[in-house]
């Protein structure tokens, strides 16, 4: 009976986020774990009088593992693709081929039934948020350096020169667009080798979850060098060590949450968007304008930060403050 509660979120994704039109060819790519979510999204697509096809596969073993060729072939012919899957398909060839062919892609990695009922998705006013997200993305593009501080001790500089900011508005209306609502954010990939300082993570971390105590990450020459804290810090360090690739320590992203309805709860698609938080990611950056490719991309959510751009404007609690 949970489907009833999930329908509002599904409609939001279909009607507002993707703006699915009548007769459009829609493919829902899912795996056997998330078929219930696929079902509800399919209901919303069918309701919209578009052509709906569900393509389900066995769950992949890691993020960004390639999809079966039959699934990739179906994606290439679609106008709109929703992807509720256990692991993210963001960096697969199947996804880039589909967006290159003009598909609008709504990525829904590790989506939970609760997310389809969450105010972060159901209640957020996407149109109202769009101008500010775009403005912050532009500010990130123009900035040469970001300086991030927080009351708990975050103090890190990130070089941004020549890098382009991106606005994830949750509105995926143009051919080839890609997004993961309710993750609304402005983001940028720092220049490799430039990040320097300390990050005190007090929100959540991908694959670790909500933090019960802060984790301190020391960054030198663009790479995380030391991870200190309690049991969760050890788990985080273990995940990175297991990848067995120095590139997983690369500082890959600075993201600024822009969804006022999002609450930190350990589901990253919601956490990354939480207004008042920022996140710094380690790992792969190849798909976002960076140069490092590796198997993981883990986001570290930090609360209460001030982001200063070129010692001029600041972003505090997600809002722009001109000093």
């Amino acid at each position: 009976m949970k489907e009833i509660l999930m329908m509002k979120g599904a409609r939001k994704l279909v009607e507002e986020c993707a703006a699915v039109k009548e007769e459009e060819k829609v493919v829902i790519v899912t795996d056997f774990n998330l078929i219930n979510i696929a079902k509800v999204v399919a209901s919303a697509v069918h309701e919209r009088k578009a052509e709906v096809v569900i393509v389900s596969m066995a769950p992949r073993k890691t993020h960004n593992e390639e999809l079966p060729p039959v699934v990739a072939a179906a994606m290439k012919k679609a106008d709109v693709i929703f992807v509720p899957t256990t692991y993210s398909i963001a960096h697969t060839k199947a996804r880039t081929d589909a967006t290159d062919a003009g598909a609008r892609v709504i990525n829904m990695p590790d989506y939970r039934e609760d997310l389809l009922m969450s105010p972060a998705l159901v209640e957020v006013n996407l149109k109202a948020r769009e101008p500010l997200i775009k403005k912050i993305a532009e500010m990130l593009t123009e900035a040469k350096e970001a300086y991030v501080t927080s009351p708990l001790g975050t103090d890190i500089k990130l070089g941004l020169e020549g890098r382009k900011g991106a606005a994830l508005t949750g509105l995926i209306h143009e051919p080839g667009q890609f997004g993961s609502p309710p993750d609304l954010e402005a983001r940028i990939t720092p220049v490799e080798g430039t990040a320097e300082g300390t990050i005190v993570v007090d929100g959540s971390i991908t694959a670790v979850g909500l933090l019960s105590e802060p984790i301190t990450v020391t960054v030198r020459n663009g790479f995380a060098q030391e991870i200190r804290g309690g049991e969760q810090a050890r788990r985080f360090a273990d995940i990175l060590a297991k990848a067995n690739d120095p590139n997983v320590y690369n500082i890959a992203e600075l993201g600024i949450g822009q969804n006022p309805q999002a609450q930190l709860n350990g589901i990253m698609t919601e956490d990354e968007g939480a207004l008042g938080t920022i996140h710094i990611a380690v790992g792969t950056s190849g798909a976002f304008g960076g140069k490092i490719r590796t198997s993981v991309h883990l986001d570290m959510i930090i609360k209460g930060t001030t982001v200063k751009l070129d010692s001029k404007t600041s972003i505090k609690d997600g809002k722009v403050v001109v000093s």
Partner: protein
Amino acid sequence: MKEILMMRGAKNIVEKCASINPRGKALIVTDLELVSSAQILAQVAYANGAEVSICIMTPREVDGQEPPETIAAAMQKAEVILTPVSKSLAHAKATEEATAGGARVLSLTALTEELMASDAWEANFEKERPTVEKVAQLFTQAKEVKITSPAGTNLKVSADGRKGNAHSCLVDRPGQFSAAPNIEANFAPVEGTAEGTFVADGSIPYLGIGLLSTPVTFIIEKGKVVKIEGEKEAKKIRDIWVEQHDPNVYNIAQVAVGLNPKIKAVIGTLGCNYDEGAFGTVHIGIGTSSTLGGTVRAPTHFDAVMNKPTMELDGKVLLKDGELLLQ
């Protein structure tokens, strides 16, 4: 709990009929009516170690209608395709193109829970294969085929130059097609040659018809149905044809002999693939023939089954009142 009863049929379909081995890559194309059957097939294939993907669409409106383009594209890339769907894809262009590209296709139209739990899957398909291939070979060699039946069928068609198809429910070579569990041998008569009367007194397991309470009579001239007589079933077919508004829907597309020894008679409730396989029955396909070696493509293809047929190939009796006479 019906899943338990479906398991043996599913195992036979996956392992015997479709030869999906542990390293195989299977695509299951289904619609919202038959997802539970698709799921059991996937379960068996996955447990065996195969890679399995499922495409689910909304049910098509008529048999032979094309699947969505996205699914057709997936089918193009597949190694082996199973199609538990409520409306047949056997004669769809997507299927023709997939087999042309080397995919093995096992057509599983109307594979309900009941059909999957039925005895039809207990047939020894390997053992029956030589018989089916023999009959198909006789069709290949035949020039003229004559069919009569106690109910009044009296039909002649030319098979000259046409290749018989052996559908033994086994697809183990690239590009091979078979429906299942209807073991059958068939051919597409030469266009324009069918002449006479065909009385369907068994079933028309399509268009929502099923078992026939009163016979449906098709009057055939120059390869096409020119008149259809009978009760409400005949009217239904006539109405659909008028609506389709395409001269090709009247084409006599297929002559086939059912050869599954585990299917003793048509019953009308287990779908087309059950009834068409009933041992010793003959069915006529009407509409698309390009999937069987003919040249006609129509918006639909459906079949009508007759009981106790007698069939002569160039004067030699192959079936006598439903009994197969093979030397």
